């Protein structure tokens, strides 16, 4: 895996090309042994954990995108809980959230990179 930049505890990883994600959908990605869900909503690229805490399956990348009262969300494909794309917070249950990751688009808008904090 190509590591692009290393500052204290922070690493940006190149994950895929913009073309790899159809606008309005997501893909699963593997980073450091973790499963991530990476989405292109058309207005931005977002990454959260792929693991759905309600079903216990790695499926969030296959959820439907949308917004609930202006908050960009993905709906789990299994039981349809909503997770905020920016924070990973579950909208139905304040106790539950999934990890959220910072993303950026580089290389003349061609590549998607994700920031992972490591210890």
């Amino acid at each position, binding site marked *: *895996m190509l590591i692009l930049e290393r500052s204290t505890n922070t690493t940006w990883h190149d994950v895929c090309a913009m073309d790899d994600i159809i606008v*309005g959908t997501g*893909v699963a990605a593997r980073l450091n042994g973790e499963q991530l869900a990476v989405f292109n909503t058309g207005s931005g690229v977002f990454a959260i954990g792929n693991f759905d805490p309600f079903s*216990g399956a790695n499926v969030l990348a296959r959820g439907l*995108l949308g917004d609930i009262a202006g908050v960009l969300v993905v709906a789990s494909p*299994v039981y349809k809980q909503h997770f905020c794309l920016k924070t990973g917070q579950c909208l139905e249950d304040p106790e539950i959230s999934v990890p959220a990751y910072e993303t950026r688009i580089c290389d003349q808008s061609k590549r998607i990179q994700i920031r992972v904090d490591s210890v």
Partner: protein
Amino acid sequence: MEKLQLLIVGNGMVGQRLLEELSRMPHAYNITVFCEESRAAYDRVHLSSYFSGASADELSLVAPEFFEQNGIHFLREEAVQSIDCLRKTAFGTRGTIIKYDTLVLATGSYPFVPPIPGHDRVGCHVYRTLDDLDAIRRDAANCRTGVVIGGGLLGLEAAKALSDLGLQTHVVEFAPQLMAVQLDEQGGAILRKKIAALGVQVHTGKSTQKIIDGDQQRHKLVFADGELEADLILFSAGIRPRDAVARDAGLAVGERGGVIVNDLLQTSDPDIYAIGEVALWQNKIFGLVAPGYDMARKLAAHLCQQSGEAFTGADMSTKLKLMGVEVGSIGDAQARSPGARTCVYEDGVKGVYKKLIVSDDCKTLLGAVLVGDTSDYDSLLQYMLNALPLPESPSSLILPSLEGKPMLGMDALPGTAQICSCNNVSKAGLCQAITSGCTTIGALKKETRAASTCGGCASLVKQVLESELKRQGIAVNDHICEHFAYTRQGLYHLVRINKIRTFNELLQQHGKGHGCEICKPAAASIFASCWNDFVLDPKLVGLQDTNDNFLANLQKDGSYSVVPRIPGGEITPQKLEVLAKVAQQYDLYTKITGGQRIDLFGARVDQLPMIWRDLVDAGFESGHAYGKALRTVKSCVGSSWCRYGVQDSVGMAIYVEERYRGLRSPHKLKMAVSGCTRECAEAQSKDVGIIATEKGWNLYVCGNGGMRPRHAELFASDLDDKTLIRYIDRFLMFYIATADRLQRTSVWRDNMEGGLAYLQDVVINDALGLSVELESQMQSLVDTYACEWKRTIDDLEALKRFRPFVNDDLPDEQIVYVRERGQKRPPRAEEKALALIEHEELV
């Protein structure tokens, strides 16, 4: 102040309701209850459901801890054996002695067993308590035949129970007809025919003279003319009030039994009251639960010194389903009122009989008899109870008419109109609750208790709710979601008329925001129903719901199941072999579905294209088990093999399945074709059911299995192949155009104003002038059909989405299985950790 002692004798339906009413208001009583039965109050009205699966707990009417929480002293399995009115003392059968200030008799009634010789032989039963039913069940296990003595309402219900227990069942009635109390002669005759058709033998005009040992079976009933043998006998010859204790205590009782009460439900001793089936009011016993509940409510108010509302009698109209036959009786069913006129509708073929009894000036309804179809019951009852003016020709209320009936508008009902008789809720009561914020059926039910006992009033309650919301201008928001201020039907028309093909166009022109998991799949479904474009097209794929999204059914562990189409359930051994090979190769859990197909479970997303490559090569197509679309067309073997078949049901099923395969609709669609009236394909539980007749096909529509089963209704008879298909084309496209999101045809039909008649009018008589358009829309969908999987496996772009990870081709290592009965299944939570470890060791 010292508390008064209130003693309640009997914990049946009415006694328990009295306790509930008292617990809702402040009162100054210490309450003691004598309960003779081993179980506290339970729902006797639904007693028979005990044989069809309900447990005693489910039938219980007593909330857990109810007695404790309300400080009620409850004496289980102890009856009152005598009462000393002078000393105001009651004596229990287990030695309890209680002094009371006020006593309430709620002892109900007992089944009358005529004192014919042999009535007390072993194997003679009655049908009143759970203990009775336990005894019947035990006995029936060793019996082949049963006979019910008594062909009234309860007798027929008991007969149904016996036949459900697998006994060959007879009903013996003394009167010349069945249900003599509620029906007239003709109604009784039709009911008899229907019941006989269900395999229960009915013997009317028979008086049993004695019961002796049988020759072949346990008993022999001897009649004045003839005899009948049976293993089990059940008496249902009427009920008698349980007034023995009252009688011994010197209370006034009626000539034919029953403790006499006044309008305050007081007996001849002012400190003793009687309610429920034991009470005799104006020389009448009320053998239904609703009047008993009314008594309980009024007595509770009286005992708590609240407004002393008098008991004013009760309407004894009833609606019920006996062995699947709908029967309704309203008011003066026998037309005994002076000057009464009648008007009758009879359809001997369908077995429907309806009679109205009207006043001599034809202005008001006095009564009605309904057999075979009680859909008019609710509105007729309202006409009678509220003396609403009848339409000019009253017969229009019962005639089946294509123009639709004069609808009884809820606005026409006065506020005092009683909507729920079980719980005495008036229209005004409902409206008040609606105004105070109960704007859903659930909330309304909870607040008013309406529709929570027998449920018979549910549709009226709903109508009141709807008309009241409309009247009060409380807008019922029917927008599909926050992104579109339209219903699904609205969106469908926008899409079709403006030829919209993408979600972006739709959103820009008619919506706002980004969309969501409600409007996106709805839009996807509408696009598919209108234009039939490839659902995994980059412009459409982001709209597809969970299963459509990967053309397979997502299972709980994130894996998928695969269901190839097997039209009509017909498959060659060669193709079966292919399925077996694929299942083996990918280790797929294999199960036969209810729709005559084969479901292969446990495929990872990255395996789907490979699996389908093999299937498509062998000639399989997508089964659309993942879509809100046509699923299967089930069939029986029909005339090709079956001795009874009159048409080629398999051939028709395959034709229909191939015509409508891939058709996307507001919800899933199921169909079936049976080769004769024996109906082995269960077509009457499908959205579209086709049953062969000598002359062609009968078409049934809007049936449903699942959570809320609904029988399909006969839509048209004896159709030739061509007409059949044309009707189905129109029916389906009309459904697609007008149904709500995720609305099955059954619910769509139930909500349709004008009902089946309207639907027939649109589809058969082309009342809206839409037929040509509907047919051509369907034809274009048929012509543009293409197998989605075939298309996908040749489309490199579409295939990219099936990679397990965008940056890694190793599959998800967390999908693991355990084995059971020779196949795999997902591990349960407690098994998963172990399964993961084993999996790691293998890799």
